[in-house]
């Protein structure tokens, strides 16, 4: 990774496994935040299909944690995207579904393994957009035990 360049992201969502209680409400919140109505009950009771959650949830025994896009400074997925579908905008890695052809270069290079391919659709299943519309990531907002937290930018040079 090139670490010399100036940091541009504002915050990163950090998963603290020692406090993850495995409730998976982050996924529910993510789906709701990216549904049409943005209302949990309307979305789950009335919308079909529901969007996929952009969270990769790992669980084994009592250890669990939720991972989502880190919006890396030198995002390899952006560098390696052959269509420009992955692009950096205001420090966030934004996925433009309409441009994606399903080449999986981003899947190949994402160090966190949080880009999940939808093989049949030739698109990425869902990509964390840091809840751009509301400005506050829904998964962090809902996490009942602050296992998901925003790590404030510590200016690195």
């Amino acid at each position, binding site marked *: 990774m090139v670490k010399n360049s100036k940091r541009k992201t504002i915050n990163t969502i950090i998963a603290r496994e020692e406090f993850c209680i495995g409730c998976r409400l982050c996924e*529910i919140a993510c789906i709701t935040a990216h549904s049409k109505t943005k209302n949990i009950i309307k979305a789950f009771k009335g919308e079909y299909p529901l969007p996929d959650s952009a969270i990769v949830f790992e669980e084994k025994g009592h250890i669990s944690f939720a991972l989502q896009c880190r919006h890396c400074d030198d995002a390899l997925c952006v560098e390696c995207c052959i269509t420009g579908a992955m692009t950096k905008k205001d420090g966030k890695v934004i996925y433009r579904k309409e441009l994606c052809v399903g080449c999986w270069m981003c899947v190949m290079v994402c160090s966190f393994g949080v880009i999940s391919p939808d093989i049949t659709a030739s698109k990425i299943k869902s990509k964390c957009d840091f809840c751009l519309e509301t400005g506050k990531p829904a998964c962090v907002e809902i996490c009942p035990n602050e296992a998901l937290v925003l790590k404030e930018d510590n200016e690195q040079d």
Partner: protein
Amino acid sequence: MAIPKIVPDFRVIRDENLCINCQACCRVCSNDTHSFDQNIAKIISDHRKCVGCHFCEEICSTGALTIEKCYSQIRENFNWNEVDFKNLMKQAHSGGILLTGMGNDRPWINYFDHIVLNASQVTNPSIDPLREPMEIKTFIGRKPDSIEQLKKEKKLPILLETEIPVLFSAMSYGSISLNACKSIAAAAWEAKTYWNTGEGGLPESLKKFVSRTIVQVASGRFGVDARYLNEASAIEIKIGQGAKPGIGGHLPGEKVTADISAARKIPEGTDAISPAPHHDIYSIEDLKQLIYALKETVDYKKPVGVKVAAVHNIAPIVSGIVRAGADFVTIDGFRGGTGAAPVVIRNNVGIPIEIAIATVDSRLRQEGIRNHASIIAAGGIRSSADVVKAIALGADAVYIGTATLVALGCHICQKCYTGKCNWGIATQDPYLTRRLNPEIGKRRLTNLLRAWALEIKEMMGGMGINAIESLRGNRDQLRGIGLNDKELALLGIKHAGDAW
């Protein structure tokens, strides 16, 4: 006969219009109350397994769940209430002593709720704590008899200094999780008060809070060595506990994990048994030996106190303890909590803390030794009003235990002894302990103490008092409501309506 089933205590009410089948409730319940049925694509809840901890209700993001009391009733009978009936049924089934957690839940009279506070009107001015200085800093320990004596001895007494007369009471690592201990210790550090290790020893990761730590020496002597004693701010010899006076403690071997064994300094996997009495203390004289053995160990640099349960002879007992050299005495009333105690003991043994404070304070004053030791009242303090009333009755400070746990999420379901605490407090199960994030715990406890400090100052200001010292034992500020003459006499207060 057909073996009767025991009617569940709670009913899980699920509003199907709101439930989105996210299964968060299924994932979090440590009692396996909820399960998702693939065939009918619905979540089924087994009422029988519900202990009423309300964790699922709070985690449910659509508000679909309500935990209700189960209204199945036996025919109303003044002598046979539902609790006694159910307990009897359980015992007929199990043949064992019934266990429970937390404090006495029987409807005994709560004297705090029959005591009201005074406020200044015309004849003396009230004080606005936002604009004028208000002192609630408290010193715990033996105070000199007089200024002359202090001048003569030319050294200040060894005192604990706390910013608020509210301390976190003894809850051991073992009875509660390390994350719970961390929350409490960190909050004590932040709020500049003290926390108490209970008989759990001092875990390595909490040593950074050692200068705000009171360490306990109990009948099992767990975790005790010279270093433990010398590191601490103060030492408390535990004789008894309000929830189970006369009863020892037992942490089963399976709960003695590597970390707990290290903190308690006992082999991993062995039962941690605290005998009912200290086998080296059968008299006040024996207690005196232990107090001075400990004082010698710490070179008289730390206050040494004694904790006893409030029982019938509490006033003479405390008098003896003070004369034995204790710098503070903790009195634990019968509403004090526990991690595990027989139901019958918890509900029927001991006396209320309000009476105990008043009678002890009166007795020590009569004997002229009130300044020899501080009194810390414990067992049933629920609010800042209780704190003020306890201090006005004669306590120097209070310990809060149940209130601490409630701030950490506890819903007082009384199942501490099962080790399945969904809130991650009274458990060592790694699935559950992670539910208590000590950052949040510390924040909530610090908030609680801050809020109480503000309220205590408001109440004092109303009475026209600007220092907690002037409130201590100031029973003129209290009036009883609905109490008989004997009760008023024991509490040392007048009835509402009686002027000075």
